[in-house]
């Protein structure tokens, strides 16, 4: 072994540039792989930890206006699969009435609700992931605002409506498993019951959320359907646990996903480069390998000699990559940790990257082993004369008529003979180009004004949603008459949203959200078919069509749209 290490050391010394380039590639791959997995591990652990402490509901139905409490209680009683339920009273306060450092929260797009701590589940947690307790005169501020506005404990939040004003001191920053994500359009502030009572007398509008915890194995989709069938209060959005998970994953996981995706591409590029370099190096080394075989060097030792060389490179890269990934991952995890905490299982953020770099190392080592073993199969003579290379490369013939396009003919001939090496180079170019073009394409796609049409929304400059108020029609009419008077508005259209019951390919019923109105004002492009023209037609999103097993011209709707 000492002898082999000595040979490897001398080889590294002589081929410094190749060794350095290879090392950089491998370190970068290991670094990104470990970094991405560290972010992913931290995210999973943090979200798990938050969910463990906060116990988020499996299904939430928001509601504004009065409701029949006895009907809700009956609904809960009649459903064995409901483990626990609660009705949370939330006082919605207009952003213009919430003041921090002399400025209102009007610029915020969030709906802000004030609540007291829940009793059964869906707890609002402090930064130690403990159930937050806020005494009178104090307030717990969502972590979203702490990050966006730099609000910290000790700051003062003022609520003002007309002559009424209430100052609340920030006691803690709140983690909210249900509404943490920046994608959730509502945020909850935690205050004491006495403050909530007092404030509700002067300002705000009550909103209720009916929250349900389900027993293991129970389906939220079934509960959602039953809830609608039973005519449960539903003047607001319904959110399932899977939607909450999706929002959290999208908010926190996107960074991890992008890093892992880029690292995978880099790994592919590295492995391809490595295989190219090993092939090229070994073809240069064929004579040396032949000489070693000739003098009786055992095949195993020759294989080890070359494997040790790449093993040292890979292991060094893995260690450096893993170590670099720690600060890198922590940097990208700072936001996740702020939103969700340190997490429940530490091993994920240490173990996952370790497994990742180990797999990467194994992949590279096995790749090297395969290429080296192939070379060792050749006889001494083949190696010494380079015959192995010649038989593999094949040959090409010059045209009988002479060389009209000499450069092209020779270039194509060489391409044909060394097609394996050229395929590797080609793939490296493809993946590198993809890596360069992907972010640019994503940027231009997202920045394109027509991007919103991908979501099933016509291209417009402003979209105003009025949701779930008691005087919806009056509000709509006010807005329309205001907009019609505005000379800067070129065109406008009104759409109404609602739910329809639908049946999938398996005969199961569920509700899907639909929008109707004059689609010709802000038209959409359809993958198949055309815009609905009468009341018997509707257009489905590609995802919905796949989920429901529908194609164009299928009979689909069971109910008429209900507002």
């Amino acid at each position, binding site marked *: 072994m000492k002898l082999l290490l000595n040979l490897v050391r001398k080889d590294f010394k002589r081929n410094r540039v190749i060794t350095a380039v290879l090392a950089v590639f491998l370190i970068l791959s290991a670094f990104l792989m470990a970094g991405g997995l560290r972010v992913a591990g931290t995210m999973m652990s943090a979200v798990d930890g938050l969910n463990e402490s906060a116990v988020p509901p499996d299904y939430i139905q928001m509601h504004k206006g009065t409701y029949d409490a006895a009907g809700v209680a009956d609904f809960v009683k009649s459903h064995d699969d409901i483990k626990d339920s609660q009705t949370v009273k939330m006082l919605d306060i207009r952003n213009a009435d919430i003041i921090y450092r002399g400025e209102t929260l009007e610029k915020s797009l969030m709906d802000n609700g004030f609540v007291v701590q829940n009793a059964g589940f869906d707890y609002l947690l402090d930064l130690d992931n403990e159930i937050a307790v806020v005494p009178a005169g104090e307030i717990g501020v969502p972590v979203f605002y702490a990050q966006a506005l730099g609000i910290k404990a000790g700051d003062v939040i003022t609520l003002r409506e007309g002559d009424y004003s209430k100052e609340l001191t920030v006691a803690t920053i709140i983690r909210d498993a249900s509404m943490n994500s920046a994608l959730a359009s509502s945020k909850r502030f935690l205050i004491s019951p006495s403050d909530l009572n007092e404030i509700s007398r002067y300002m705000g509008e009550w909103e209720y959320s009916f929250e349900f915890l389900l027993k293991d194995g129970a389906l939220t989709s079934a509960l959602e359907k039953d809830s609608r069938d039973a005519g449960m209060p539903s003047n607001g959005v319904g959110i399932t646990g899977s939607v909450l998970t999706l929002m959290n994953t999208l908010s926190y996981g996107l960074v991890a996903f992008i890093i892992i995706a880029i690292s995978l591409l880099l790994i592919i590029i590295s492995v391809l480069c490595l295989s190219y370099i090993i092939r090229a190096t070994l073809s240069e080394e064929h*004579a040396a390998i032949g000489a070693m075989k*000739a*003098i*009786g060097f055992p*095949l195993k030792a020759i294989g080890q000699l070359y494997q040790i060389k790449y093993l040292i490179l890979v292991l060094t890269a893995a260690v450096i990559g893993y170590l670099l990934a720690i600060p890198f991952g922590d940097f990208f995890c700072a936001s996740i940790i702020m939103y969700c905490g340190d997490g429940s299982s530490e091993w994920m953020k240490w173990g996952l990257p370790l497994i990742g770099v180990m797999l990467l190392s194994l992949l590279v080592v096995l790749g090297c082993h395969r290429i080296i073993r192939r070379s060792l199969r050749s006889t001494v*003579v083949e190696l010494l004369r380079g015959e192995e290379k010649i038989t593999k490369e094949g040959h090409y013939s010059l045209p009988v008529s002479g060389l009209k396009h000499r450069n092209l003919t020779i270039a194509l001939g060489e391409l044909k003979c060394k097609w394996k090496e050229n395929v590797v180079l080609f793939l490296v170019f493809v993946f590198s180009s993809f890596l360069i073009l992907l972010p640019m394409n994503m940027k231009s796609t997202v920045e394109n004004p027509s991007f919103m049409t991908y979501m099933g929304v016509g291209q417009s400059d402003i979209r105003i949603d009025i949701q779930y108020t008691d005087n919806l029609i009056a509000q709509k009419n006010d807005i329309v008459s205001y907009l019609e008077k505005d000379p800067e508005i070129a065109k406008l259209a009104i759409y109404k949203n609602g739910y329809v019951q639908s049946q999938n390919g398996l005969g199961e019923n569920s509700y899907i959200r639909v929008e109707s109105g004059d689609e010709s004002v802000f038209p959409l492009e359809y993958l198949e078919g055309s815009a609905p023209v009468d009341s018997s037609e509707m257009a489905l999103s590609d995802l919905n069509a796949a989920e429901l097993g529908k194609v164009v011209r299928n009979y689909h709707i069971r109910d008429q749209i209900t507002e």
Partner: protein
Amino acid sequence: MITVEQISKSFKDTPILNNVSFEINKGDFVGVMGPSGSGKSTLLYSISQMDSISGGRVLFEGRNLSEMKEKELSDIRLRKMGFVFQNAQMLKNLSVLDNIILPGLVAKKEPAVVIRRRASNLMKKMGIEGLEARDVREVSGGQLQRASICRAMINHPAILFMDEPTGALNSAATDQILAILEDLNREGMTIMIVTHEPRVAARAKKVLYIQDGQIAACREFKTGAEKERELDEWLRGF
């Protein structure tokens, strides 16, 4: 020592060796001659199993080399055979001395200090002492070829296979090498050398003439000044 029984070798459909049989005894100095492309180098590599054969068998000290596993063959090459190629085929990352002692270290038969001492003696005998630390690219072709003979000798092989060892050397360097080979043979070393130069083959005790993949003739020569002339005359007959 070596019995070659009807070995054949083809490349795709082209026969290169065709039913070749002969024997090499201990202490022999066999020269192999023949026109270019006749198969003389192929014969040498086939006998030493550095190249595969299509038919026949090669017995080395009574054991069939063709039936041996690669590990056993490596061991025989390491301990019983020495090889010298037309281009020295040294490992470019090692110094001259390290190249010479490498097979000794791989064999692990003796302590490194003994191997080094033997390497020094061999280098002195070959007239290349003082080049130990030199890079293989810093020495002349003749010096390198002598170093490769040292490498071939480091494990006291039973037989030395040489493929055109003087092909790339000038006349003075060739004479030096040939003198060394004669000395080694006198000391009991068995040698098989492939060459196209009559004056090199004239140092051998027995010469095989290969033509179209077969042994066209075989002749033993007496030692003495007339040997080279005698060989010339014999070769003129082909």
